[in-house]
């Protein structure tokens, strides 16, 4: 359950160092490529959308991957934050940097409040109940016309500004990238701490986790609050990237698309959802010239991955790595006696 375990060999440490150096190299190259691509307005837009999906997928992974709850209301919570921010900044004329924390806190609290009844449920029944919440949120977005603009949606009038720079185009891409990197570091530390151990213990058997003294409800609520806040961050970024907001932008299909990216890249892995988002979210834009075949190619790719890589791309790679590391583990008695000495 904990990523490490009691055994630390020199070979293991060297392998870990090599992995860290490799990860930093890949991150630097990725950021470099993104910076180059962001000079073109269209690729900057596609990049922003990809980064927003990577943020969303990372947030959903905390819930669906690490705590075993598939929240189909994820899109609705994202929409709630976006609508709330737009309402506060453009209708109520609140300063942006006051409205943003309010909108994100609102998303986190709404996620917990709407999710609380569902937290008593498990597996399929939790997912079903979260679907009902999502449908209720979509209905709210449609009928609350003074707040949301109804089914026809609302256009974003004013882009937010940071240090005198309007956050649009490549500046929005940089903002999304900075948020994704910060979020990745935060989630990485979280899941490697005792919180991550307890999240996985609850996911694998919540009755057992409770019997071992873990406050199951508390950890589920915290995971839900974090996941909902991340949904809200993505919702706000998506709104400013697209420049438009409507109930369709944040419906159940959005939740399913994000879930697909999590499963495609690898559930319960930090990099998996990011890999899933990077590979899947630009596809609709890249395949625009063959739009008749677009959905077929997209669907075939997903089905093939699920058939041959059910743990997702990163999940498969990590499983192979774990299997290899097990074969070189020494007898624990030796390690224990060495530690005692």
């Amino acid at each position, binding site marked *: *359950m*904990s990523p490490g*375990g*009691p*055994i630390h060999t020199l070979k293991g440490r060297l392998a870990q160092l090599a992995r860290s150096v490799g990860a930093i190299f890949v991150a630097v190259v990725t950021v470099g490529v993104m910076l180059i691509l962001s000079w073109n307005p269209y690729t900057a837009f596609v990049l922003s959308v990809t980064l927003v999906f990577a943020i969303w997928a990372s947030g959903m992974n905390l819930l669906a991957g690490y705590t075993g709850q598939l929240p189909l209301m994820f899109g609705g919570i994202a929409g709630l934050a976006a609508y709330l921010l737009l309402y506060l900044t453009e209708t109520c004329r609140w300063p942006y940097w006051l409205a943003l924390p309010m909108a994100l806190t609102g998303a986190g609290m709404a996620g917990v409040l709407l999710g609380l009844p569902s937290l008593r449920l498990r597996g399929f029944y939790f997912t079903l109940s979260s679907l009902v919440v999502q449908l209720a949120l979509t209905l709210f977005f449609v009928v609350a016309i003074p707040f949301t603009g109804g089914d026809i949606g609302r256009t974003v009038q004013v882009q937010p500004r940071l240090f005198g720079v309007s956050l649009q185009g490549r500046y929005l891409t940089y903002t999304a990238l900075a948020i994704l990197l910060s979020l990745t570091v935060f989630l990485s530390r979280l899941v490697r701490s*005792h919180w991550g*151990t*307890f999240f996985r*213990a609850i996911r*694998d*058997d919540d*009755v*057992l*986790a*409770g*019997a*071992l*003294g*873990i*406050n*199951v409800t508390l950890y589920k609520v915290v995971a839900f609050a974090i996941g909902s806040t991340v949904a809200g961050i993505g919702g706000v970024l998506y709104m400013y990237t697209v420049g438009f907001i409507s109930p369709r932008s944040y419906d159940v299909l959005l939740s399913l698309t994000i879930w697909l990216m999590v499963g495609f890249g690898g559930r319960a892995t930090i990099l998996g959802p990011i890999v899933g988002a990077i590979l899947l979210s630009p596809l609709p834009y890249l395949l625009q010239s063959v739009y008749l075949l677009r959905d077929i190619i997209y669907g075939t790719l997903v089905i093939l991955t699920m058939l041959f890589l059910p743990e997702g791309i990163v999940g498969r790679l990590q499983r192979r790595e774990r299997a290899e590391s097990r074969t070189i*583990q020494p*007898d*624990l*008695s030796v390690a*224990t006696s060495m530690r005692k000495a």
Partner: protein
Amino acid sequence: MKGDGVPLLRVQGLTKRFGGVCALRGLTLFLREGETVGMIGPNGSGKSTFVNVLSGELRPDAGAAEFRGKALPLGQPHQIVRMGIARTFQHIRLYEAETVWENVRVPALAHYRRLGLRSPDEVVEAALADVGLLQKAALRAGQLTLYEKRLLEIAMRLATRPQLLMLDEPAAGLNAEEIRQLLAFLKALRRRLTLFIIEHTMRVVVELADRVVVLSSGEKIAEDTPQAILVNEEVIRVYLGGVNVNREGS
């Protein structure tokens, strides 16, 4: 006979219904510190329900319980564990895909600070050494034998440093040799813990328990020493199906 210590657990009028079925009917019970109490009864008599309620997994419809004079927060499993009560399950529950070490590390992480320790690894090592599984710490739990899995379950509870350990059918599925080993282990364990054991294997109850409680249809029908229970007419009729276990030598 042990069990002359101070009262550790008092259960008063515990009732639990599932729809029209009354699984526990106003059960009253007490446990003294240091004693080992066995609970027997036919299938469906409410034994596991009693443990489920007392460990907080189920909320009772009526009744209350006190542990060391403090009200037990029934329905709050994690708080009950923190008060010093741990339980195992009738059907073994482990994190089978994880290693033995990682299984015990889950409760160790949850409790080492409360226990005033600097590292959860100290707790894990002590618990695994207690049950004799330290050499198998790097194995996955799913690779263990049934008996070892039972020991791992107990090690996970020992990592919470309980004062009362409730074992739900610990000998279920074990062969005669494994039962002998389990008995030896539990005899050592009862010197430092109060044990409450639900068991169908009479040999385990007779050899371990200072006192036996017999349930039938959610009600306590007898409570006495194991020797007295074995010759109790009512118990023989309800639970043992008219067969005198002493004579049969089970």
